[in-house]
């Protein structure tokens, strides 16, 4: 069976991609067959942290539905505008106009149109693909077109593809790098996962996000652990976090400029500086996670 592990944070910029790229790399390098999923489809960066995509193995477009108006039939009665709950229809010069960015394609307008002037069309909303990275790890990633909604659905599709591939090709573990926040794409990222790793940094802002995320994990019945990143930037506040999460804290990683350097060089820290302090702290946390999942 393939295990699914998701890395999330509530707040942006705490180090989700940093942790998930290194975790996937670590697993692969010690012989656990891992595959990575970048579920941050609005700002997908995981492949970059692993050196960029070398070759695309498979690609698929992601479509959504929107409505379109046949103006030869439209009588400009405005019924459609009145029932749209997404403000996607506006009257302009006596005729309704569709805002493609806001239209959800549910078609309440089509139901009420007295002259049947409204129909549906497919519109490309983004794409998902599987690529190989220079560190020998495959990444499933998606790219939602700017301004689009339905990122939760795109994440769901992405995870389904990764799960199917994992089943077919015998991967042991799927590492999911979640989007920031606690909204739709994040809930999609977490649902169905075996374990959630919450990355928190020692600031009130980050702790608050982590607590909100822990709340979601509890609602979804997902087991969750915490890694405190950059803990030495505010040791006092690290103690506050420790009091808050207690035994759920599975590791702490110190701050160092080489982390940024590894990012800039698009190489996992574990590969670039295998013996650095943050590397060793990270490996320690990863081993504890694996222990928890009993696949060591």
């Amino acid at each position, binding site marked *: 069976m393939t295990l699914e592990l998701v890395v999330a944070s509530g707040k942006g910029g705490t180090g989700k991609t940093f942790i998930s790229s290194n975790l996937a790399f670590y697993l692969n390098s010690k012989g656990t067959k891992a595959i990575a999923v970048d579920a941050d489809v609005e700002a997908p960066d995981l492949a970059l942290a692993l050196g960029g995509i070398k070759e695309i193995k498979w690609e698929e477009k992601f479509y959504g539905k929107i409505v379109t108006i046949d103006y030869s039939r439209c009588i400009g009665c405005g019924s459609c505008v009145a029932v749209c709950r997404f403000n996607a229809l506006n009257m302009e010069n006596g005729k309704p106009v569709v805002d493609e960015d806001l239209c959800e394609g549910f078609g309440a307008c089509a139901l009420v149109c007295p002259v049947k002037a409204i129909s549906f069309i497919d519109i490309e909303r983004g794409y998902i693909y599987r690529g190989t990275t220079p560190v020998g790890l495959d990444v499933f990633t998606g790219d939602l077109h700017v301004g689009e909604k339905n990122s*939760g659905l795109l994440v769901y599709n992405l995870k389904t593809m990764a799960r199917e591939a994992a089943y077919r090709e015998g991967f042991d573990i799927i590492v999911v790098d979640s989007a920031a926040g606690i909204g739709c794409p994040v809930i999609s990222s977490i649902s169905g996962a075996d374990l959630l790793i919450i990355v928190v940094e020692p600031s009130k802002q980050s702790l608050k996000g982590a607590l909100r995320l822990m709340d979601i994990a509890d609602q979804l019945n997902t087991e969750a652990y915490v890694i405190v990143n950059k803990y030495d930037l505010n040791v006092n506040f690290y103690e506050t976090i420790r009091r808050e999460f207690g035994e759920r804290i599975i590791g702490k990683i110190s701050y160092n400029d080489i982390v940024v350097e590894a990012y800039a060089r698009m190489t996992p820290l574990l590969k670039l500086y295998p013996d650095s302090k943050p590397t060793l702290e990270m490996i320690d946390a990863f081993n504890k996670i694996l222990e928890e999942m009993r696949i060591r």
Partner: protein
Amino acid sequence: MIIAVGGGKGGTGKTVIAVNLAVYLANRNHKVALVDLDVDNPCTYTLLKADLRIVSHVYSFKPKIIEDKCSLCGKCVENCPLHALVLIPGKKLLFIETLCEGCGNCIIVCPQQAIVEGRSLLGKIMAGEYNNLKLVVGELKPGERKSDEVIDATLNYVLKVFNNYDYIILDIPPGTGRGVYQAFKPADLIVAVTEPTMLGLHDLIKLSKLIYSMKKKWIAVINKYGLPGGIYSKLKAFLEDKGVKYLLVPYDLNLVKAYMNGKTVIMEYPETESSKAIINLGEKIEKGEF
């Protein structure tokens, strides 16, 4: 003037820039409202330590079924695009709330008027003050998915209540999706905060596509300038190629320290390099340079 502070990638420093800019402008005796639209995890108020009160709750539409009137005809089920309504033939109509996006098709098609307007709580809008700066915060209820609707409601509140203000500063959530699009809509100027990493650049390029599609005016702030190993030339080349003005906010441990302690750097360390850079941004905005 409405200024949206966005950036695409998480953690580039959107909130730090937005909060410090708002504090600077308010200190200069302008009427300023700072609006936290990062509704998944709003954190402006931890930096400002403002006492907030709830000014409004945000609700989302959901259908309410009046069982006595329902004839179990199944019309609503046929017309529910997300299969949030399920019919057990002859027995019961079930509503699965987590699947519902609130299109209202069921109300339209029900021949018995057995489905009416109902609502569920999505989040809240809070407001408070920090000295003479007004703060408005939208917050999503954990477990709810409709961040965009809370963003919308918060914006509507702000545009109604603070329409005579000199500056409205919007703190935008990470990402480039619908929520960001909605939040950019009323903006006169977008300040895109980025960092000198490939990831920062990659997300900035994506964000710029959204900005151009919306035909908005924008400038960039390269935050954490001077971080070792940063990719300055690529970032500058991109911005210069696009003809976008940019400012540099130096990487400064005082800023990190202030942030980690929940304080604003321009109040804690007004003389530090990053404070000077943010003040410079504020001055340029005051002079109408953008």
